């Protein structure tokens, strides 16, 4: 083992996995995997979509049990853990999918299942002590909301902070974070990484799963790489770097991001234009923005700056409270998403499982759904037309699945995202809006999606990409619009691109 | 207005009570000093009827004539009403309560009359099947018992009675199923007012009209039509019109202090009648006249 930090190497492992194997019908999610976790160690766990990271964490969290193999916690060997068993041995878990109760307040969520009780047999919640216990936790994660706030009123990022506070609240010995930063941009991510360091200082181990490799580089003591359910390799502190991780993950080096697109492009005509549009969340802040044909317009901003809201208005999900939309110079009235789709305005939404795809339908059925009449003769669906369209998208996008009849719910996150893209690419987009298109997507698939966006732009489509990933915004966009509290605070052209400028605009200041 | 109100509370929504409504109407014409009303509980259940009467008492009703949903076991509830207003019973009696009097007919006697019809129509004996809404209801039990008593010692037998929970689709299907299950049945009895028409229609659909003796109760238009046609042997009719008409007048007199109308046993029996082919026209005409049509 290549431990750089000898003090950690010397300690006995808190937890070890040996030869763990987990299969789902038709899929080997984990195949003879072994690893160990020592006290005070931060392990970065990386791997492509579907490599088995979440499966591994679900086994540690007691949500599923492995087919074979042993899990040793504190010297005791188990065939599998239960949720209570896992919690009991000090394993705290922030799931990839959020697990909060919208109808309860923040405090109730953080200490859910471990409420301080008042004396007496009735098991009444001691509400004042609960509040006392929550306050320092919220402070630690840098929350900008109160302990009494209903979770339903928080943004996705704020909810993620609640999840992290919850993990901290357990006197944990191991904290597992499954893509905690996937919806955390900029400042919040830094805060989280600080929290991880503080945990380490307290002797608590952390397993940190992320597709943002630079974050892993910053905090990990050791990186474990998964590939196809197997251990592809382990990197010690000194060996952790972007290229090494990528090589282990996908088995080859990734070419440098093509700089070809650097060449100045003649901007196309304006495709979608917003004139003084007011979104329901920021009704007092009119937005002016135009997306041109043949460009990728990046939309950056802090958490809750109103980008998703704007996208929802562009896609006809929410009505605007004022202003006008224009498509190719003609006024556009959108009563529903159907109207937008009819005009060739498509949205790849931020919340894939809730709004992006139907998990119970097959890949083919998902892809044909927005354009079903075209796959039908006399209103009757033609299965062969459906399959043909889906096969094409599967091939073009490299969707990894046994067949196009596979249930979408069994695919890994990245492949699900490709299905969402596929359903729009099968039609003729004029304007393509992508809200956090690479959220939770591995580096290989990311590159493919960037390529796809570029190809779309080259074909004359207006692409609007909302992203909280700074590298992505700067690397992919032709222009960057930045939002601040519901308004466009500035637009940067390629020669003005810099992290600093985006950040300044995002907090409402002028760029240099 | 300050006129005292008298209420006639029935045991559930049914066409049977339409005649009583006519009786109440006629009595109203003769009792201008009173407000007369007829009340249907929204469901045929003890709790709901009890509540309706409680509310009527609250609303200041001076006298109530009730066809209790379950008189035998509602003694306390009825007594509570009787302590606050003049309570009369009709349709089925509650002799153990403090009700002033009962006006109505005897279901047992009605059952016996049904037996008479059957005996007359089938001198050589036969096998009868009965159909009824609620097997457990008192009026059903008494009619069935009366008929069985009446048939005792003859070669006619009431072999089974099928219930339908007042679902007319089931009532008709029950007859259809009975025709299949018991081909040897020679007579059918409809104990509730809608049962006889359903028997009539099922027999007509099966082409068995006239081959099976039908004994009816009450005076549904289809039943009377069948009687006239000769396909229903005869029907036993009660006279809810008379109960209501006489009852309301009696109650009004009683409230004025005139107790002469109440006989010694506190029972005023208005006998049921057998309506056969010969009486049916006169009876139907009379019905029409009473309803004021």
């Amino acid at each position, binding site marked *: 083992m290549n431990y750089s930090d000898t003090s950690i190497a010397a300690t006995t492992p808190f937890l070890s996995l040996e030869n763990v194997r987990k299969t789902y019908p038709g899929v080997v999610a984990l195949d003879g995997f072994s690893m160990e976790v020592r006290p005070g160690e931060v392990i970065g766990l990386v791997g492509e979509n579907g490599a088995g990271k979440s499966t591994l964490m679900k086994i540690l969290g007691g949500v599923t049990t492995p*087919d074979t193999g042993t899990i040793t916690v504190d010297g005791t060997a188990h065939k599998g853990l239960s949720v209570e068993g896992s919690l009991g041995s000090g394993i705290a878990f922030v799931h990839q999918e959020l697990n909060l109760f919208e109808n309860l307040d923040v405090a109730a969520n953080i200490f859910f299942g471990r409420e301080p009780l008042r004396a007496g047999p009735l098991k009444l919640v001691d509400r004042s002590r609960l509040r006392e216990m929550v306050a320092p936790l919220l402070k630690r994660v840098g929350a900008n909301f109160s302990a009494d706030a209903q979770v339903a009123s928080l943004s996705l990022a704020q909810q993620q902070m609640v999840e992290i506070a919850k993990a901290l609240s357990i006197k944990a010995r191991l904290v597992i974070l499954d893509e905690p930063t996937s919806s955390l941009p900029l400042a919040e991510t830094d805060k989280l990484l600080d929290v991880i360091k503080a945990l380490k200082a307290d002797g608590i181990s952390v397993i940190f799963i992320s597709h943002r490799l630079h974050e892993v580089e910053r905090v990990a003591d050791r990186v474990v790489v998964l590939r196809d359910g197997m251990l592809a390799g382990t990197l010690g502190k000194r060996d952790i770097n972007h290229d090494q991780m990528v090589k282990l993950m996908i088995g080859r080096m990734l070419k440098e991001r093509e700089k070809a697109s650097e060449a100045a492009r003649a901007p196309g005509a304006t495709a979608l234009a917003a004139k003084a549009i007011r979104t329901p969340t920021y009704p007092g802040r009119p937005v002016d923005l135009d997306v041109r044909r043949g460009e990728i317009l990046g939309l950056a901003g802090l958490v809750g700056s109103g980008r998703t809201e704007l996208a929802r208005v562009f*896609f006809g999900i929410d009505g605007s409270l004022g202003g006008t939309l224009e498509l190719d110079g003609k006024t556009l009235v959108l009563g529903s998403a159907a109207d937008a*789709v009819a005009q060739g305005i498509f949205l790849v939404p931020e919340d894939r499982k809730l709004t992006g795809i139907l998990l119970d339908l097959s890949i083919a059925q998902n892809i044909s759904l927005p354009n079903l*009449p075209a796959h039908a003769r006399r209103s009757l669906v033609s299965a062969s037309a459906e399959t043909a369209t889906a096969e094409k998208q599967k091939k073009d996008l490299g969707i990894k699945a046994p067949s196009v009849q596979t249930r979408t719910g069994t695919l890994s996150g990245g492949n699900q995202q490709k299905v969402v893209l596929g359903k729009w690419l099968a039609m003729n987009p004029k304007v393509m809006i992508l809200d956090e298109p690479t959220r939770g997507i591995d580096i290989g698939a990311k590159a493919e999606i960037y390529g796809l966006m570029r190809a779309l732009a080259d074909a004359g489509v207006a692409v609007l990409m909302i992203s909280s990933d700074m590298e992505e915004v700067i690397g992919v966009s032709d222009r960057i619009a930045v939002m601040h509290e519901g308004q466009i605070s500035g637009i940067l052209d390629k020669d003005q691109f810099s992290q600093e400028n985006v950040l300044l605009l995002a907090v409402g200041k002028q760029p240099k | 207005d300050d006129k005292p109100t008298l209420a006639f509370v029935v045991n559930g*929504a*049914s066409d049977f009570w339409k005649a009583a409504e006519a009786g109440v109407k006629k009595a109203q014409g003769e009792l201008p000093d009173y407000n007369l009303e007829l009340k249907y509980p929204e469901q045929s259940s003890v709790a709901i009827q009890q509540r309706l009467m409680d509310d009527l008492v609250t609303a200041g009703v001076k006298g109530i004539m009730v066809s209790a949903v379950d008189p035998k076991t509602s003694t306390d509830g009825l007594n509570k009403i009787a302590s606050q207003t003049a309570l009369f019973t009709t349709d089925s009696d509650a002799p153990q309560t403090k009700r002033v009097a009962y006006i109505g007919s005897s279901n047992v006697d009605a059952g016996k009359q049904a037996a008479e019809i059957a005996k007359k129509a089938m001198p050589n004996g036969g096998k009868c099947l009965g159909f009824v809404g609620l097997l457990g209801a008192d009026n059903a039990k008494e009619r069935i018992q009366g008929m069985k008593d009446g048939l005792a010692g003859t070669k006619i037998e009431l072999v089974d009675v099928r219930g339908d929970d007042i679902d007319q689709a089931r009532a008709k*299907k*029950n007859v259809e*199923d009975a025709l299949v299950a018991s081909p040897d049945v020679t007579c059918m009895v409809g104990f509730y007012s809608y049962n006889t028409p*359903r028997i009539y229609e099922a027999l007509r659909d099966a082409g068995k009209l006239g081959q099976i003796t039908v004994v009816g109760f009450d005076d549904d238009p289809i039943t009377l039509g069948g009687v006239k046609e000769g396909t229903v042997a005869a029907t036993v009719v009660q006279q809810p019109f008379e109960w209501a008409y006489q009852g309301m007048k009696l109650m009004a007199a009683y409230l004025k202090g005139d107790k002469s109308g109440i006989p010694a046993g506190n029972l005023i029996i208005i006998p049921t009648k057998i309506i056969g082919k010969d009486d049916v026209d006169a009876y139907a005409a009379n019905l029409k006249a009473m309803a004021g049509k």
Partner: protein
Amino acid sequence: MSKKDLGLLILILVVGAIVAIINPRFLLPINLANTSNLIGLFGILSIGQAFVIITGGIELSVGSVVALLGTLFIDFIAVRELDWPLAFVLIIALGAIIGLVHGWLITRLKLQPFVVTLCGLLIYRGVARFYTADGTAGFAFGQNFPELEFLTAGRSWGVPNSFIALIVIAIVMWVVLHRSVFGRYLYAIGKNEEAAKYSGIRTGRIVMAAYVICGVLTALSAIYFAMYTRSISPASHGQFYELYAIAAAVLGGFSLRGGEGSLIGVILGTVLLQELQNLVNLLGIPSSLNFAVMGGVILIGVLVDQQWGVFRARRLMVDAARKNVAGAPAE
């Protein structure tokens, strides 16, 4: 035909065989005709319900609508003496309007289907009772409508026309539900309405259409029921028919969460329920146990189906594990 449907069919045949052995008169053509008549009536009702259930909704007012529209139909032709085809069209239109109002309240005003249709259950029966002043709507003796009676209560080649109507409706609705674009939308909405909306489907209209279909089919069966009983006491007519319809759908493999179920399933569910009712009468079981038998069979049916699903999933899992383990060394 799915495995689920096949299982139900086998159950129906087994029960039928047992009843036929105990009482061979079960198989008499007249009995089969009588029962298939009721299958027709309840089947039409249940198909309507199924269209609503597939969207994740529920229609509890079915029984009250049967009472209200049946009362109006008889009143129109027997008392007001409208031509029956006109009355027929009016009633169907009323059914569509009721469906439209329910759909509108549910999709536009975002009320819960259970609440809307529960209120409908209470209101429509009340209106029907008020309309007849708690009396009965029925034909006078000898009032006849030969064509209407033939179409609704008559028989062709010994088969009740109501059953033939059910078959025709079932075939059309099978195509609509399982082959058409509209049917696919219904399933999609039942599975995940949000995602369907984000795919550009006008979910509001589709759901509304489902309630209208339910309203129309309910109106149609209301006419059939009216012509079957030929007399309606609004206080009790059609009571609990919504439960029959829901039970048929559930037995037929529909999930009340939406997005699951087949048209053949709901028909088979109806057949089983009517077979049970017939059985109670033919075997001389006390009528009081009628509902209990129905409840018991539904429970057992759903339980077996569920446990069978669990068993199959488990076996699949074990198979997968075995295959994968076996295959491992060869890799």
